[in-house]
Structures are given as structure tokens and as C-alpha cells.
């Protein structure tokens, strides 16, 4: 009888902990002003990449993205353009693919390599294989951008959200949230809009 009690308690605990997995990402992720931890993730060239590898960077445009989300695909050219514009100014794009590749085989490392090659990605495209990095950031979807500024305290989160205000048509964009944020940081100004919302594809766990 006792064993059964213990087991049912165990069941409850396991059930509860499983249920909270999805919530953690949203509730406990970084807020603007938090210091973001560094990570070590595998790039499409097989090498491990950390933020600290970028000695000359002033900050980072950390972008959670993937091959299979139509919104992420719609933004690929704009992500490339961001890196081409800002890497040399000290804000490289660091792209991270957060999906479980068993659930979403189209996001496997091999498929990531293919996609990066065919699109000509100029930035690292890392895989969050253990799915341990995206929950820390609080990323919930792709694409989801976190701009970090390197400071004496560490890498401080300065912006969370969308790339711009028109996912359908790059030429009809009115406000370029990420560009505005990086431009402000480069000038030493406050980021004008620190958080924005956009529809995206749920990260596959």
C-alpha cells in the first residue's frame, strides 16, 4: 500500500514537472536588462561556437530561427542582410536552431547545412541540440531575436522580439526594430523599442 502511495506521488511529480516544461521557457527567460549566459553550441561546420569567441564584438544579434518555419524562412534574407551590415560594426548575427530534430526532421544538422549553403548564410548557424539554451533566453518561437551588448557586467540583453514590422513584405517595412536597436547601441543611446511581439512558429520540444 505504501509503495503504491509513493508511486502515485511520483506519478504526480513527474506529471507536474512535465507539464511545467513548456511554461519555464516563457516565465523564466531573460528580460531586457538581464545578463545572458554564454553557451557552447555546434555550428554547421562542426566547430563549437561561444559568444566569447568573438573578441572584437561589441554585442550580438542572437537569432533563434530554423529551416522549417515559414516566418523564419521569410526573414532569412533579412537576417543575412543584418549580419552583412552589422558584423563589421561589432554586432554579428548568431543564429541558433532550437527545435527538436526528432519532431522536426527538416531542421536536422544536415538540413541546416544544406539550407545555409543554398542561402549563403554569412553567420554561424548553431544547433541547440540539448535544447538547453533557448529556455534560458525564453525564446518561444522562430524567428525570435535577442540583442546583447557586451559590457563589463557581461552580455546584457537590450532587445527582445521581432526583426521588423512586416513579415510579408520586406519592402513595405515601416519600422526596423532590430536595426533601430543596434544603431542606438552603436551610438550609445537607449534602445527606442525594447520589446516587440510577432507571430512565429512554436519551438518544437
Amino acid at each position: 500500500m505504501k509503495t503504491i502511495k509513493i508511486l502515485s506521488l511520483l506519478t504526480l511529480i513527474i506529471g507536474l514537472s512535465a507539464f511545467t516544461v513548456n511554461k519555464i521557457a516563457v516565465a523564466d527567460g531573460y528580460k531586457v536588462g538581464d545578463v545572458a549566459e554564454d553557451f557552447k553550441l555546434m555550428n554547421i561546420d562542426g566547430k563549437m561556437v561561444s559568444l566569447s569567441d568573438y573578441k572584437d564584438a561589441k554585442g550580438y544579434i542572437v537569432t533563434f530561427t530554423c529551416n522549417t518555419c515559414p516566418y523564419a524562412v521569410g526573414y532569412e534574407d533579412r537576417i543575412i542582410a543584418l549580419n552583412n551590415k552589422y558584423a563589421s560594426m561589432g554586432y554579428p548575427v548568431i543564429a541558433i536552431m532550437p527545435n527538436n530534430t526528432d519532431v522536426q526532421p527538416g531542421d536536422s544538422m544536415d538540413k541546416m547545412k544544406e539550407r545555409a549553403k543554398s542561402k549563403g548564410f554569412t553567420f554561424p548557424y548553431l544547433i541547440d541540440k540539448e535544447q538547453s539554451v533557448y529556455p534560458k533566453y525564453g525564446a518561444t518561437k522562430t524567428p525570435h531575436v535577442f540583442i546583447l551588448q557586451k559590457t563589463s557586467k557581461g552580455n546584457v540583453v537590450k532587445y527582445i522580439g521581432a526583426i521588423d514590422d512586416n513579415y510579408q513584405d520586406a519592402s513595405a517595412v515601416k519600422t526596423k526594430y532590430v536595426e533601430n536597436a543596434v544603431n542606438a547601441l552603436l551610438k550609445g543611446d537607449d534602445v527606442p523599442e525594447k520589446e516587440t511581439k510577432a507571430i512565429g512558429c512554436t519551438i518544437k520540444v
Partner: protein
Amino acid sequence: MRIIKFLVLALIVSSCNNKKASEASNVVSKTKDNTIEITNTDLEVYDFNGFQKFLEKKDDKVYVVNFWATWCAPCVKEMPYFEKLNQEYKKENVEVLFVSLDFPHLYESKLKPFIKDKNIQSKVVALNDVDMNTWIPKVDENWSGSIPATIIYKNDTSKFYEQSFTYESLEKELKQFLK
């Protein structure tokens, strides 16, 4: 024997919860692109201002408003539960509304054929408003923007869910509005 049963149950419970949002059936990519000529379904398309009325009805009905898209696998997976709910609770003054966030250029090739092929009985409208940063917080200030997302409301009482549902969990939430 009993112990084994419990362990199995424990495992099932934990794995179900974990995976319910993620088990992806790739219905979307299988939808054929050549069905334009057979779809004459009228589709109501709104910008957010036009759409807002669907979130503000005050007619004592319980509205279950689900944001989805044909490309969103977890959304497609839970749609049958909403359809079932719509059927089962129609008599109790409940109405399900599907709000598609599909890309406008895919209305003809993906969305309309999907509605037709799946024989969706609940009302479907399309929301086409690129200025998401303006309208997402108006739906719910805590919505990060991932879908599926659902609002259940009755008059001035509403609850927002940025999650996937099973039929049981959906029905449980609905029942809070039927008391």
C-alpha cells in the same frame, strides 16, 4: 503488477504533457498546390480593427477563439478537438471560431483547400494584419506570439491560453465558463 501499471501511467502522463505541443504531422506540406479552381469558398479576411468585433461580443454566448495556421503543425493537430467541442456544446450556446494567420498569398492554394478537405464546420476567418506588434498585445498582453493560442470568453470574462490543447483539457477550460 500494480506497481508496473503505475509506472507505465507515470511515464504516459509525463510524456504526453511534454509532447502534446510538438507532435507534428506534416499535413500542411502535403496540401496540393493545384486546387485553386475547385475552391470557391468565401473567406472573410480582416485587418485587426475589423477583426476585433469577434473578441468583443456580449451576447451571453461562450466564444472559443483559436489562432492557427495551416503551416503550424501543433495547431492542425488540435483542430479536431475544437471541431468536436463546437459540435458537442452547440446546444449550450458555445461557438468555436478559427482565426487563420496564414500568409495571404496562400489563401487560395493552402487555406481554402484545407478548410474544404478537412470539412471544417466551425467558422473560419482570416486575420491579415502585418503590424503584429500593435495587435498581439491587444489580444492579450502576455501573448508572446507563438501559435496555437486560444481565447475563451463570455461577455466580459475571458481567459487566454498560449498552449496546445487535448480535447479533455479544452473541455475542462470551457466548463469553467458554463457554470
